[in-house]
């Protein structure tokens, strides 16, 4: 019993210690400290010339310690005050010792003039001095140890106090219930009320969609334009993956086909066809659809992951062929196609504001069509195929035809998105169509919630918008993004805005389990 109690603290301490060392080695401590400095208004900056304010670093250490203390208290609900605090102190000590030891070792090497940067580029001389608080390694190590222990103790005490009164738990359930009740009331309320609310909501949303592009500047217009294009892609892939359940990893192939068809038809080089923009958009969509049909015919009988890798391969084939010497005469090779025509209406070329409006309009239309499709007979047959292909077949659905239709529709939307992408960027090159595009779109579909249309909008905002927002984190943005993806899958596997049918299905825990009750952990 006693051992178990201590074990918690040891594990937490070790984990946090290692995480903190990782943050030091990746240089994140510096960024974190700067952020704290910015929050506090950098009051110390005026003092020393080049020296970064040490207090920020100590605060950063303290913050991590605080979190550590909080998380130790969380695990030990049944512990007494003494044991709980002991655990926090233990965790703080262990983490502090780990970090202190690393600082001590690197610090003493550094003071002997050893340059770590060949192997660990973030440990340059300036950073090392900062990590050492501009003092000796021993003093700095001790500071880390003390800060971490004290902060962990405070965190543990706070956590324990909150849990003791279970104040947080009460408030949480209260909020949850209130939200639920409000939701119920809204749903149960008379339909005219609901209608009014819906209409009001739609008007406000429409107004925002119209007004925002006017005011938020070209950068956000561009970013939201990208988001809109990815929403179109997401809707398309959602038809294939979310509705009909076919895992396609080479969706970028159709995107590339659309973009290149459009670009080659409208750009002055290399072919100088200079076709009308709207006609070219139509042809791009048709060509992409045909590509989808041609690819689908031989391979749609494949199951699950075989289909995934075949389509992945197809995506790569398209990209490599586009940039290869073999097709350079047709596609202009790795240089890409430049001066792609922008759309115009009544002789006026779209400005970026017009373009954003236009994209939003298309997204709304596509969402509407997808919604109608989902509720149609075809849509239900897709869902039947997704749930169980054999049963679907037995009920008289032509599964092959349905799957092919889904693939063709998805490809058509990707073709449209590609044409818009090329025309908005006025440029298209093979580097825009890497495997990561397919992966991103798949992430949009799943992060938003598989089979859910509002989920796609949310997912696209998160996946294409978040990296732009995370630009503040500079080099760390993709690191944080990857971590967030994992965290999201663990916390909300059903997606940010799950579809209702899928969430029912999620309760079936195991692919093997025909017995639902048994597999509950």
């Amino acid at each position: 019993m006693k051992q178990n109690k201590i074990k918690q603290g040891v594990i937490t301490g070790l984990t946090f210690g290692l995480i903190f060392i990782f943050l030091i080695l990746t240089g994140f401590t510096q960024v974190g400290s700067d952020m704290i400095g910015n929050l506090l208004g950098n009051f110390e900056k005026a003092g020393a010339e080049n020296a970064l304010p040490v207090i920020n670093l100590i605060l950063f250490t303290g913050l991590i310690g605080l979190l550590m203390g909080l998380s130790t208290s969380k695990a030990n609900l049944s512990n007494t005050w003494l044991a709980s605090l002991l655990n926090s102190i233990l965790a703080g000590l262990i983490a502090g010792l780990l970090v202190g030891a690393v600082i001590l070792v690197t610090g003493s090497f550094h003071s002997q003039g050893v340059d770590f940067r060949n192997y660990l580029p973030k440990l340059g001389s300036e950073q090392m001095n900062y990590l050492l608080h501009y003092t000796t390694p021993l003093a700095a190590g001790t500071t880390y140890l003390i800060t971490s222990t004290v902060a962990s103790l405070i965190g543990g005490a706070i956590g324990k106090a909150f849990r003791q009164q279970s104040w947080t738990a009460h408030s949480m359930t209260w909020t949850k219930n209130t939200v639920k009740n409000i939701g119920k009331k809204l749903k149960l309320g008379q339909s005219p009320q609901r209608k009014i609310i819906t209409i009001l909501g739609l008007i406000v949303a429409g107004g925002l969609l119209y007004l925002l592009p006017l005011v938020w500047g070209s950068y956000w217009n561009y970013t939201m334009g990208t988001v809109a294009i990815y929403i179109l892609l997401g809707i398309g892939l959602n038809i294939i993956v979310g509705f009909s359940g076919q895992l396609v990893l080479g969706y970028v192939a159709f995107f590339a086909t659309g973009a290149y068809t459009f670009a080659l038809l409208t750009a002055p080089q290399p072919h100088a066809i200079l076709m009308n923009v709207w006609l070219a958009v139509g042809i791009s969509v048709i060509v992409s659809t045909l590509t989808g049909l041609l690819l689908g015919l031989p391979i749609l009988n494949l199951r699950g992951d075989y289909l995934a890798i075949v389509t992945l391969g197809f995506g790569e084939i398209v990209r490599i062929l586009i940039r290869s010497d073999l097709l350079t005469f047709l596609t202009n090779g790795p240089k890409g196609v430049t001066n792609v025509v922008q759309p115009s209406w009544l002789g006026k070329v779209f400005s970026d504001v017009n373009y954003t409006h236009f994209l939003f309009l298309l997204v709304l239309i596509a969402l509407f069509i997808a919604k109608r499709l989902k509720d149609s007979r075809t849509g239900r047959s897709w869902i039947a195929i997704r749930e169980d292909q054999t049963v679907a077949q037995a009920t008289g659905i032509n599964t092959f035809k349905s799957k092919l239709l889904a693939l063709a529709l998805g490809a058509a939307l990707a073709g449209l998105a590609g044409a818009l992408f090329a025309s908005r960027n006025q440029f298209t090159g093979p580097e825009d169509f890497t495997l990561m595009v397919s992966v991103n779109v798949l992430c949009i579909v799943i992060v938003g919630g598989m089979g859910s249309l509002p989920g796609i909008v949310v997912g696209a905002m998160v996946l294409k918008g978040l990296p732009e927002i995370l630009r503040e984190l500079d080099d760390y943005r993709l690191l944080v993004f990857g971590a967030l993806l994992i965290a999201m899958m663990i916390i909300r596997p059903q997606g940010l805005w799950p579809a209702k049918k899928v969430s029912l299905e999620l309760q079936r825990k195991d692919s093997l389990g025909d017995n639902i009750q048994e597999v509950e952990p």
Partner: protein
Amino acid sequence: MINKIKELKITWGSAIRVIVGSVVAVYLIWRVVIITFGSGEFGPDTWVRFLITGLVIGGIYALIAIGYTLVYGILFMINFAHGEVMMLGTFAGYFVLEALSAMPAPGTDANINFLNAQPVLSILLTFLAGAGVSALAGYLLEKIAYRPLRKAPRLIPLISAIGASIFLQNAAQLLFGPQRRQYINPDLLWRGQGWMIPVSGKSVMLTYTGGFSFVLSILLMIGLFILVRKTKLGKSMRAVAENKQAAALMGIDVDSVISKTFIISGILAGSAGVMWGIHNGLFNHYVGFLPGIKAFTAAVMGGIGNIPGAMIGGMLLGLMESLGPALLGLDFQLKDVIAFAILIFVLIIRPSGILGEALTEEKV
């Protein structure tokens, strides 16, 4: 009724198979005739070179592919971050070699470093470090990113794996910097030196690193095969792959078997990573991505979940990449196109890979 549907399906599928198969076969025969009786663009020595390089790369692909196949066979998930596990192994091996080359050898004069004084021990240490770090990475990856998702639908762990892949790649760039690094080999295994094989009047070089990698990968594969077929762990792995619940009822600790599977696939990936470093030399944080995709292809081609299938798939992929463009008279830039086209072709002819799925019977 059901019979009728089945018949219909078979006619659809077989019609396509016959058409595609015959077109490809005719084209291949025509190409081979052209090459043998026609231009004679490449001499026999060139063909031997193609063969050697294909086998060496194939061995590396096979090792990574086994990792995919093991994990897939048990969890039915594509471990997208497997390439990154290999990358961590490559880094670990590099650091060990750097340390050993900076260390003076005990008992000899100061001019010879440890690496050259004890080459066999050094290489062994390097492989241990690479395999160990990759095994640890695989273990932690499963524990942090996949285990909480054990019960989730199949696509969820895939996204988690993609997240892990992005995270690990960027973590490695931030930790170790973006520059390419090069393995310091002991003089015994110096790159660009090897045995000379006389082929039709010319000598073809089989490099020491290439021969070493190939032999080692074969040995590792044999070892794995024995492990899966003969040991208790292998038996329980197969049992878990077959049916998790039944295995649990038989007293097998499913969680621990899954962890061990990740450790084994990590060991293989780490060894492949060190081989990559020793044979190729150059690497950076991005080194795992391309081999990862290739190995995944190889695993599927052989029949995913099937260990001999992954070996054959890997070797075949390596050979196709080196021989394919020459056989078809295409640019070497298109070798991936050829590889993927053959993959599609194989799957159309045999929808569950060359050897089919063996670790398990039936899975969607």
